[in-house]
C-alpha cells in the first residue's frame, strides 16, 4: 500500500471524474484539476467566491462549482479552458445545485424550496418546477439517467412527479400515501421507486414507474420509524434501517420482509468474527533511541493499532441517547451494500464505534468491527467486496472477507482521515483530512494473490 504526498483542499471538496482520469479539488475559490495517475495539475480555474459545492458532469467534461452564499453557479469545461458559464439565481437564493444525468442541464433548488430551476446549457432555456418538497432526499435520478423522481408538497399532501430527463416532460404525477414524505429512491434497474415516510411513522411505499402502488410495508407503529433506506445493486433487496436498531430486508418479488438484522449490544452465539481494534503505544526502550526511530519521531505520539479477534461473547459499548431531544442518536442510519450485493455494512448510531457487516447469502452476521473511536465514514470498493473506513484518526481501516487491517497514514503533521472515497477502478482511495487530502494506492498484485 502506497500513499501520495499531501495536497490542500477546502470544505472536503475533492472528486474523481466519472471516467476515473481526473481529480478535481477545491482550494478556497480555486478549482484544481489533476491527472489521477501523475497527480500533475492539468487545469486551474478561479471562481468568484469560495466554492461550497463541486460536481463532475456525467461525461467528465464539465465541472460545476456552486457558491450558495452568492447564489451563483459556475461551470468549467475541461476540454475548452476558456469556455465559461455562469448562472445567477439572483435574490431568490440557492441551496442546492446539481447536474442532470445528461450533463447538459443544471438543476438549482432555490431557498425555501420555492422551486427547482432547470437550466439548459444547450439552449440557455430555463424552466421551473414548483412545489418541491424540503426533505431528506427529494430528488432522485434513475440509474440509466432517463427519469427523475421529485417529491412535491401541495395542499398539505405529498406527491411524486416523474420527469423524463431528456426533455423534462412530466411523465407521471401521483399522490403518495404518506403523512410526511421523507425521501425517495429509484431501484437500480429504474423500475421501482421506494418512498418512505418521516421518522414519525414507519412506512415504506413501493411504486412502479407508471405510478402504480406495488406494495406498502410497515414494521411497527407508535414509535420512531425509518431512518435510512438503500437498494442493493442487484435491485433484489431493499434494506430499511430504523430507529429500533434493526435492519429489515425486503425482497423484490413479494415486497415482504425476508429477514431482519438486529444490532445487539451483546454478541454471542453467532458465527460472526468480532474484530476489535487494540491500540498499542510504542514502548520507549533503549533500542528505541536508534536513528530510525528518531527520523519518524513525529509519529511518536501516534499510537500503533491492530485488530484482535475477540472471543465471544462480546459486549459492545452503547451510548444511551437522550430521550428528550429530537432526532435521538439511536438506530441504523447508514447502510451500504457491497458492489456484488453480497455484503451489507451498517452502522447503529448508539454504537458509534462499531461497523456491522452482514452476509446477504447466508443472511447472517459476518463480521463486527469495533474501533477505538467513532466511525466517520465507510465505503465499499466499487469492484471488490472490500470495505474502507475511517474514524478521524491517522489510520485507515480495511475489511475484506479474508480479514481486517489497520494502516497508519504515513504523513507528517497528523493527517486525520475525516472521509474517504474509492476511485472507480478500486485501485486507489482518496483520503480527506480537515484541510488536506492524500491518495492511497492499493497494491494490486497483492490483491490478486
Amino acid at each position, binding site marked *: 500500500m502506497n500513499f501520495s504526498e499531501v495536497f490542500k483542499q477546502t470544505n472536503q471538496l475533492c472528486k474523481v471524474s466519472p471516467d476515473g482520469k481526473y481529480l478535481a479539488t477545491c482550494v478556497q475559490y480555486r478549482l484544481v484539476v489533476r491527472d489521477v495517475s501523475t497527480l500533475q495539475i492539468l487545469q486551474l480555474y478561479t471562481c468568484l467566491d469560495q466554492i461550497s459545492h463541486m460536481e463532475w458532469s456525467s461525461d467528465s467534461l464539465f465541472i460545476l462549482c456552486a457558491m450558495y452564499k452568492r447564489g451563483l453557479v459556475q461551470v468549467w469545461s475541461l476540454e475548452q479552458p*476558456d469556455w465559461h458559464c455562469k448562472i445567477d439565481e439572483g435574490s431568490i437564493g440557492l441551496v442546492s445545485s446539481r447536474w442532470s444525468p445528461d450533463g447538459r442541464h443544471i438543476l438549482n433548488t432555490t431557498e425555501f424550496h420555492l422551486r427547482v430551476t432547470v437550466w439548459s446549457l444547450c439552449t440557455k432555456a430555463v424552466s421551473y418546477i414548483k412545489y418541491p418538497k424540503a426533505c431528506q432526499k427529494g430528488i432522485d435520478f434513475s440509474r440509466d439517467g432517463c427519469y427523475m423522481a421529485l417529491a412535491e408538497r401541495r*395542499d398539505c399532501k405529498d406527491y411524486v412527479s416523474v420527469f423524463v430527463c431528456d426533455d423534462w416532460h412530466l411523465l407521471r404525477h401521483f399522490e403518495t400515501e404518506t403523512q410526511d414524505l421523507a425521501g425517495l429512491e429509484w431501484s437500480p434497474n429504474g423500475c421501482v421507486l421506494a418512498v418512505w415516510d418521516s421518522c414519525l411513522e414507519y412506512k415504506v411505499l413501493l411504486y412502479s414507474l407508471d405510478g402504480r402502488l406495488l406494495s406498502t410495508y410497515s414494521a411497527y407503529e407508535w414509535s420512531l420509524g425509518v431512518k435510512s433506506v438503500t437498494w442493493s445493486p442487484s435491485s433484489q433487496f431493499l434494506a430499511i434501517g430504523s430507529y429500533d436498531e434493526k435492519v429489515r430486508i425486503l425482497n423484490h418479488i413479494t415486497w415482504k420482509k425476508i429477514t431482519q438484522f438486529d444490532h445487539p449490544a451483546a454478541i454471542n452465539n453467532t458465527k460472526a468474527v468480532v474484530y476489535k481494534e487494540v491500540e498499542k503505544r510504542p514502548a520507549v526502550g533503549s533500542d528505541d533511541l536508534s536513528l530510525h526511530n528518531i527520523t519518524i519521531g513525529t509519529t511518536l505520539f501516534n499510537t500503533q493499532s491492530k485488530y484482535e479477534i475477540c472471543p465471544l461473547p462480546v459486549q459492545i459499548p452503547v451510548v444511551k441517547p437522550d430521550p428528550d431531544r429530537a432526532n435521538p442518536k439511536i438506530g441504523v442510519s447508514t447502510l451500504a451494500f457491497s458492489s456484488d450485493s453480497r455484503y451489507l455494512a451498517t452502522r447503529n448510531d448508539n454504537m458509534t464505534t462499531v461497523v456491522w457487516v452482514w452476509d446477504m447469502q447466508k443472511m447472517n452476521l459476518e463480521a463486527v468491527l469495533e474501533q477505538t473511536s467513532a466511525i466517520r465514514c465507510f465505503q465499499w470498493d466499487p469492484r471488490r467486496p472490500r470495505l474502507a473506513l475511517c474514524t478521524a484518526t491517522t489510520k485507515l481501516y480495511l475489511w475484506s472477507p479474508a480479514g481486517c487491517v489497520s494502516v497508519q497514514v504515513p504523513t507528517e503533521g497528523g493527517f486525520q482521515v475525516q472521509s474517504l472515497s474509492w476511485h472507480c477502478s478500486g485501485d486507489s482511495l482518496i483520503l480527506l483530512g480537515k484541510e488536506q487530502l492524500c491518495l492511497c494506492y492499493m497494491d494490486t498484485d497483492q490483491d490478486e494473490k
Partner: protein
Amino acid sequence: MGEWWTSVPTETSMGNYEISSISHVTMSPSRQNNLVSMCSSLPLSKSSYNVISAFCTEDNIPQCILYINQELASLGLSCACIEASSPGGAGLSTVPAMNAMYELLQIHRRNMCTLEELEREQLKKSSTLEHMQMNNSRLKDQLEFSMREKSGLHETERQLQLKIKTLQSCLKTEKDEVQKLQSIIASRASQYSHDAKRKEREAAKLKERLSQLLVDRKDKKLAIDVLNCLGRSDGKRSHWKTAKATASHEGEMYKSLLNDYEASQRSLMLENAELKKVLQQMKREMIHILSPRQSSTKGATADDSQEQVDSDGEEKMGDSSRETLDQSCEHAREQLTNSIRQQWRKLRNHMEKLDSQASQAQNQLESNKEAIPRETHEDEMERMRCEVQQCKEFIHAQQQLLQQQLNTSFDDETAALLNDCYTLEEKERLKEEWRLFEEQKKNFERERKNFTEAAIRLGREKKAFEEDRASWLKNQFLNMTPFTDRRRCSSSDGQSALSIRSEPEMRMSSTKAELAKSSTYATFSTPKPTQSAAVPSTTELYRTLRLIPDSSSSRHSNRGRWQESSTIDDGDNRAKSKSRVRCGDLSIFSLGEDENSLT
C-alpha cells in the same frame, strides 16, 4: 409436675433395693451368730430384734414352739415341726428347727426376689411413664408451635391479600391514567397535525406570494451567461414538445417496464422449471420407494389393494403429465401437483404405518424379551474381547518380526540390545519375585503381630491368675474353719477351672465373659480394669514367654503357646528359605528383623 412425681417412687425403690441387698448379705447361713449382732446395729432391723427378744423367753419356750409350729403350718411348711430336744428343757431339737429355718429363709429369699423384680418393673414403668410424659409435653410444644406458625401464615396471607387489593386498585388507576394519557396524546396529535397543516398552508401562501413578487420584479440578476451553447450529449437536436413526443415518452416508459417484467418473468420461469424438475424427481423417487412395498403387501388388506389401484391410475397420470409438462399447460400442472399430492399422502400414510409398526415392535421387544439384548450385549463383548486379543497377538507378532529384522540387520548392537532385553526381562522377573516376597513378608508381619498380641493377652491372664491364686491361698490360709473352707474352696475351684479352660480356646471372648462373671466375685474383677489400659512391659512378655514351672494351669497354657511359637518358627523358616532363594540381600535384612522380633 410429672417429673417431680416420678422421682419420688424411684428414690424409695432405690432405698428398698439397698435394704434388700443388705439383708441379702446378712442372710448368709454361715454366720448366724454374728448376724444377729450385726443386725442389731442396723436401725431398721432393730424393731424386729426387739420383737424377737420379747417373743421368746426362758419361760415360754413350749408356747413359742407351739406358736411357731402353728405359724409354720399356716405357711404350709408341714414337713416338720419344731420340737423341744427335751420336754420342758430350753434346747431345741436341731434338725427340724434348722429345716424350718432353712425353709423360712428360702421363702424369704423368694419373696425378696419377687419384690426386687416388682420394684424393677415399677422402675421400668415409671421411666416409661416419664418418657411418655416428656413425649407428651414435647408434642404439646410442637402443637403450640405449629399453631403459632399457622396463625403467622394466616396473618401474612391476609397481608398479601391486602397488598393484592391495593395493587389491583393501583393497576386500575394506572390503566385509567394510561387511557387518559392516550386520549391526551391523540388530541395533541390531532392538534399538532391541524396546526402543522395551518402553518404549512401559510408557508405555501407566503411562498406563492414570494415567487409572485419575484416574477413581478422582473429580477434582472436571474440570468445565465454562457460563452457558446453546447451540443447535446447524444449529439441530437432538441425536439419540440408535441403530443407525439409525449406519446413516444409513454411508449418508452412502457417499453422499459415491459422489459423489466419480461426479465423478471424469465427468471421466474427458470426458477419454476427448476422447481418442477425437482418435483418430478421427487415424484419418481416416491413411486420408486412405494411400489415394491405395495406389491409385497398386496392383498393383505383391502385398503392396500385399493391404494394399489389408485397408484396404478396415478402412475398413468404421472406419465401423461410428464409428457405434457414440456408444454407447461395448466392442465398438466394441475395433474402434476395432484399426483404429487396423492403420492405424498400415500408416503405419509406409509410412514405413519411404519412408525406405528416400529413402535409396536419395540413394545413387543420390551414386553417379552428383555434378556435378549443383554445376551447379545455379552456376545458382542465376547467378540470384542476376542478381537482385542487378536489385535494384541498381532501387535506382538509384529514386534517380534521387527526385532527379528533388527537382529538380522545389526549384529553387535542388537546383541547388546538383546542382552539388555534379557536383563530387562530378568529384572522384571526379579521385580515380580520381590513383590511376592514383600507380600509374604507382610503376611508374616501380620502373623507375628497376632502372636505378640496373644502372648501379651496370655501374660495378662496369667498375672490375673497368679493374683487369684495368691488371694485364694491367702483366704485358705486365713479361714481354716472346715465348713466355710470347703464351700469357698469348691466354688472358687470351679470358677478358676472354668476360666483356665476357656483361656486357650477363646482368648478374645473369655476376658469379656470373665468380666461379666467376676462382677459377683470381687476377687476376680480387681485386676481387669488396670490391665486393659496398660501396655505390658518387656519383662512381663518375657515372663509369659518363658516357662514358669510351678502351677499346672500355667503349664497348660504354656504348652499351647509353645506349640504356637513352633508353628510360627516353621513359617519363619519357610519364609527365610524362600527369601534366600530369591534375593540374597534381603534375606539378611529379614533375618535381622526376625531376630529382633524373637529376642
